[in-house]
């Protein structure tokens, strides 16, 4: 699509949406948000780029091919379910590691966060794969597959 307004707006909007997606991912465990919603916002940013500047630019933003992103996400999500086995708890149990940063500040890291990051990547990879396949060449065999 060749629209000056869209392109100008995308330059501002896409980075902000990507930031917002990370924010949503980060606060997800206790407040509305999370990996899925964050992933969708990030995907919207990339889709916007795809519409404004063409699918090539969108691919460059992703750095990795979408399927690889989804694969990495799946691995991360699986890994998040495993640490529970080390402390003899059932599959998938959430564990927290509270890092003391000094001055009373505590950084809680958890397997649910890791899982959310996995979901975040799977959503971006999966949905972008579909979108890019639709935008580039709808007649290829693998169109539409995650």
């Amino acid at each position, binding site marked *: 699509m060749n629209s000056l307004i869209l392109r100008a707006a995308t330059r501002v909007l896409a980075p902000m949406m990507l930031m917002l997606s990370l924010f949503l991912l980060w606060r997800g465990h206790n407040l509305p948000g999370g990996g899925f919603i964050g992933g969708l916002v990030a995907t919207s940013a990339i889709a916007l780029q795809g519409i404004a500047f063409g699918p090539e630019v969108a691919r460059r933003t992703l750095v990795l091919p979408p399927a690889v992103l989804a694969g990495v996400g799946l691995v991360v999500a699986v890994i998040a379910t495993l640490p529970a086995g080390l402390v003899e708890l059932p599959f998938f149990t959430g564990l927290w590691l509270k890092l003391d940063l000094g001055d009373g500040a505590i950084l809680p890291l958890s397997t649910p966060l890791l899982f959310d990051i996995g979901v975040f990547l799977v959503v971006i990879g999966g949905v972008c794969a579909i979108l890019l396949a*639709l935008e580039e060449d*709808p007649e290829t065999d693998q169109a*539409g597959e995650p």
Partner: protein
Amino acid sequence: MEVPLALLIGLLTGVATWLMLSRNLIRLLLGFAVLGNAVNLLIFTAGRLTRDVPPLVPLDAEAIEGAFANPLPQALVLTAIVIGFGLLAFALVLAWQAYVRLGTIRTDEMREAEPPGEVKP
């Protein structure tokens, strides 16, 4: 709130059924989308409606005090929406492929897999 929602679910189901009975593939998919929304609303209503109190634990507390909305149907509906979205996305791509390859989106004209003229059981 239950009665208007029940009526809305009924209306959506009716519209969806009418759309899905069409031979046009696109109408069928639109019907699927509408019926999906009707079903999601049904799950939401089945979990009992509680207004204005989202099931969020305050930052400084361990649990919620007092009444709060049932979070489970919301989780179920969210999952169902995600899955419905995936299925619909695939089905749309498939409809487009069918249009490109078979030259039609009318299901009664698609006879490649079961060619006409052969003996019917």
